[in-house]
C-alpha cells in the first residue's frame, strides 16, 4: 500500500546537478555526523567512571588540534559553497534564446500566458529540451512557483517581476506547487507542468491550447489594442515630444531621470512607468501621465510591455489614434 520513494523524478537539466550536490552534502553529513555519534558513545562508555583505562595526561588545550578541526571544515565548507554558487549563478541566468512564458499568481491560482496569446490556468505546457524562461508576478500576496521534479522554485512577488528558467528533459506531467504560504487555500494552489514533444507543443499552441478557448490575438496584438484604447500614442510618438518621451527603441536602453539617476528600461521599469508613472520621471518631464494602476490588470500590463518591446524593431506607425479599437481583454481572470 505504501511506497517509500527517496527522491522525486529528475526532469530538468538542473535536476541532475542538484542531486549530485545533494549527494555530496549527504556524504559530508554522514562523514561528519556518524563518527561523532559513534565516538561520543565509545568515549562515554570507555571512560565511564570506574573503568580502568589510561587517563594519563588528559589535555585541556591543544592549539594544533583545534586549528585542524577549525580549518578542515572551513575548507570543505568553502569548496561546497563554490560549487553550489556556480550552479546557482547559472540557474539565475536564462539562456538568450529561452522561450518566454508569463506567470501570474493570485490567491489561489496560477495564470499562464503564452506570447501568442494562449492562456491556461494551473497548467503550463512546455516543450521538452527547450530552455523556458518564466516571467512571474503576483496579483496579491507573495507566492512561490515550485516544480519539485525540476528542483527549482522562485518567489512570485506583487509589484515586481521575478524570473525562473528551466529546461525540461523528459516528457510527462509534473507538479506545480505554491511554496510560500499565501492564505486559506495555500495547499490547493497546485497545478501541473505538461512537458510535450516540441512538435506536439507547437500544435497545441497553434490550436490555441486545450483548456482555454483560443484567443486569436497574440500578446503583442492585445498590447497594441490596449495601446490604442488608452491612446498612449497621444503623448508617446515616434520621437520625444514635450508631452512625453518616445517609446521607440526604449526597451533595453538607459533612461535619464529627473533626479539625475539613469535607469535601465527593462520589464520592471516599463511596468512601473505604466502603473505608477510618477514614481520615476524621465528627465525633462513632469508627472502628467496617469497612473494606470487601477485600470490595468497584471496581464494587461504584460501585454502592453510585450507590445512596447516591439516598438524598437517595428517601423514607427503613423501617430494615428483610431477610435476605440477593441475593448480591453475581458480575460479569464
Amino acid at each position, binding site marked *: 500500500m505504501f511506497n517509500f520513494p527517496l527522491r522525486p523524478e529528475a526532469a530538468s537539466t538542473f535536476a541532475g546537478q542538484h542531486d549530485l550536490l545533494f549527494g555530496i552534502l549527504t556524504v559530508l553529513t554522514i562523514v561528519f555526523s556518524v563518527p561523532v555519534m559513534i565516538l561520543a558513545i565509545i568515549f562515554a562508555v570507555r571512560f565511564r567512571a570506574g573503568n580502568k583505562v589510561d587517563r594519563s595526561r588528559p589535555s585541556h588545550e591543544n592549539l594544533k588540534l583545534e586549528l585542524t578541526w577549525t580549518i578542515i571544515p572551513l575548507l570543505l565548507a568553502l569548496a561546497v559553497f563554490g560549487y*553550489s554558487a556556480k550552479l546557482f549563478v547559472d540557474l539565475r541566468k536564462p539562456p538568450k534564446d529561452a522561450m518566454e512564458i508569463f506567470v501570474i499568481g493570485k490567491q489561489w491560482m496560477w495564470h499562464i500566458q503564452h506570447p501568442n496569446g494562449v492562456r491556461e490556468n494551473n497548467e503550463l505546457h512546455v516543450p521538452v529540451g527547450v530552455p523556458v524562461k518564466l516571467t512571474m508576478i503576483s496579483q496579491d500576496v507573495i507566492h512561490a512557483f515550485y516544480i519539485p521534479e525540476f528542483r527549482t522554485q522562485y518567489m512570485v512577488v506583487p509589484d515586481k517581476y521575478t524570473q525562473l528558467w528551466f529546461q525540461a528533459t523528459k516528457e510527462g506531467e509534473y507538479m506545480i506547487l505554491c511554496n510560500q504560504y499565501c492564505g486559506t487555500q495555500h495547499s490547493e494552489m497546485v497545478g501541473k507542468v505538461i512537458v510535450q514533444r516540441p512538435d506536439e507543443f507547437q500544435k497545441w499552441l497553434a490550436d490555441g491550447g486545450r483548456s482555454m478557448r483560443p484567443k486569436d490575438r497574440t500578446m503583442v496584438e492585445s498590447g497594441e489594442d490596449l495601446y490604442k484604447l488608452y491612446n498612449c500614442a497621444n503623448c508617446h510618438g515616434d520621437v520625444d515630444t514635450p508631452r512625453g518621451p518616445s517609446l521607440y527603441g526604449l526597451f533595453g536602453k538607459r533612461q535619464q531621470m529627473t533626479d539625475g539617476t539613469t535607469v535601465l528600461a527593462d520589464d520592471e521599469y516599463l511596468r512601473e512607468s505604466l502603473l505608477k508613472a510618477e514614481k520615476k520621471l524621465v528627465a525633462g518631464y513632469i508627472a502628467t501621465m496617469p497612473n494606470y494602476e487601477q485600470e490595468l490588470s497584471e496581464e494587461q500590463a504584460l501585454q502592453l510591455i510585450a507590445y512596447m518591446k516591439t516598438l524598437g524593431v517595428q517601423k514607427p506607425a503613423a501617430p494615428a489614434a483610431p477610435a476605440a479599437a477593441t475593448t480591453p481583454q475581458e480575460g479569464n481572470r
Partner: protein
Amino acid sequence: MSATAARPEELDDATRPNYLNVSHTIKSWLLTQDHKRIAVLYLVSISFFFLLGGLAASMIRLELTSPRGVMLESETYNKMFSAHGIIMVFLFLVPSIPATFGNFALPMMIGAKDLAFPRLNLLSWYLYMIGGGLILAALLMGGVDTGWTFYTPYSSMYSSGHVVLAIVGVFIAGFSSIFTGLNFIATVHKMRAPGMTWFRMPLFVWAMYATSVIIVLGTPVVAITLALVAVEATMGVGIFSPALGGDPVLFQHMFWFYSHPAVYIMILPSMGVMSELIACFSRKRIFGYHFVAFSSLAIAGLGFIVWGHHMFTSGQSTFQSLVFSLISFVVAVPSAVKTFNWMATIYKGNVDLRSPMIFALGFLGLFVVGGLTGLYLASLATDVHLQATYFVVAHFHYIMVGGAMMGFLGALHYWWPKMTGKMYSDNWAKIGAALVFVGFNLTFFPQFILGYLGMPRRYHYYDFAPQWQAYNIMSSAGASVLALGYILPAFYLLHSLKYGKPAGRNPWGAVGLEWQTESPPDTHNFHEIPIVTHEAYDYAAVDEIEHAQAQEVMKKEAHMGSDE
C-alpha cells in the same frame, strides 16, 4: 557510588529556611524579586505554553496522516500551525533557557546575590505573561493564520485573523527578553564575585552573555518590524504592501534580521548548558575553554549577517545571495568547533552516565544532524529546491527541538536538585531521555525525505502526491512517542518534590559556585560572598581521587566558608 544518600549534617535541610519556603503566600510569589523565585515562575508559565504548543503540534500531525486531512478545515489548520509556531518560538524557545535557568543559575554561578536589577527582572516576567496572555487571547478569539513569520502583505492586508493583537503580544514579550538580556549583561559586568575573572566564568555564563547581546541588539528590530505591520494593517500606511506603495520584501529583510539571530538565541544557551553538563559528568575541564567561549561570541556576531539565506528565492540580487551564502557556511564552523571540543572533553574523562549526561549525549547527536543539514539550506543550489519544504521543518526541529529542547531538559535535570533540593528517579529520567531521542528521530527524520520529495511546509492537503503519505504517518507515529517522552518528566519530577531524596549541596560533585551553597539555596544564595581562586571546571584537582572522595573534599570546602 550513589551521591544521593543524605548526609547527617544536611538532614535538616527541609526545615532550614530557603528561597522556596521563606514565605508561602501567593503575594510573596507574585511580588518576589528573588531571581530564583522568578525562575520558578518562568518555569511554570513556560511549561504551560509548551503544553499548548505541543497540543497544536499533535493536531497538525494527526491531520497530516491522510492526504485529504483528517478533521480540520484549511482555515483551522492554518491557524493551528500558526499557533504552534508563534507559541513555540516566542513563548517557549526564546525565553526557555535564559529566563528559567539563566535566571536561576547565572547569579549563583558568578557568586552574586541576585541579578543587577531585581525589579526589572520581575517586570520582565510580567511582560512575558502579558504578551503571552495577548497571544493566547488572539488565538482564542478566532486565531491567526499567518504562520509565525507574519509575512507581508498577507499579514497586513489579507489575513482575516487577529493578527494585530498577536503582534502586540509578541512585541510585549519581546521587551521581556530585552530586559532579561540587559539584566544579564549588567550582572555579568558588575556583580561577579571577587576573583571571578572573565576567563574563570563558566561557559554557561559566556553563552548567556552572548545570547543577551543578540537579544538586546536584535529584538528591537523585530519589535519595530511587527509594529510597522500593525500600523499598516490598522491605519493603511503603505510600508510593506505594494497596493499602498510599500515594498513586500522589505518585511522579510527586517524580520530575518532578527529571526535568524533568534535561532542563536534559542541554541546558544543550550550550548552553554552542554558545556556545563559535559564538564561535570566527564569530571574534566572543558577542552579548549577559550575556543568555546569565543565561538559563542563569533556565532553571535556572524549570526547577524546571514539573514538573507532565508531569501535566496525572493528576488534579492544574485550577488547578495552569494554573500549571504558564503557567510552562512562560515558560521557553521564555530558550531563544529564546539562539537569537537565537547568530544575531546569526554575523551579521557571520568564519565558518569547519569540522566543529565544522557540528555547531553542526545543533544550532541541531534545537534550535529541539525547543524549539518543547515548546510543544504545555506548552499544556494540546493536551497533552490529545498527552501520552504519539509526539509526546512526537519532541519529547524533538529536544531530547535533536538538542540534547544534537549538543552532545556538537560538543564532541568541538572539544576532540579539545586532548585528543589530533591533528587528524582534517575532511571525514569533515562527512560524519558531515550523516549525523546527515539521519538524525535522517528518524527523528524522522515521530514527530510518529505522535503526532498518536494512537500511544501504549511500544506495539509496532498492528495495529488499520495507518495508522501507513508513518511507523514511515520512522522506522526514518532510524534506520539516524543510526546510521551515530554510528558514523562512531569510525572517523576513532580513526584520527586514529595518523595524525592534530599539532594544535598552537590549531588553531582560539580565544581561550580552554585553547588557550594545549600539546595535549595537560601534567599541570598550564599552566606558569604565566595572568593574565587580557580578557573572554571577545575576538576584536575580531583581527577586522581575517587569520585566519592572528591565529593567529601568539596563538601568540606563548602562548609569552610566557600572560599574555593
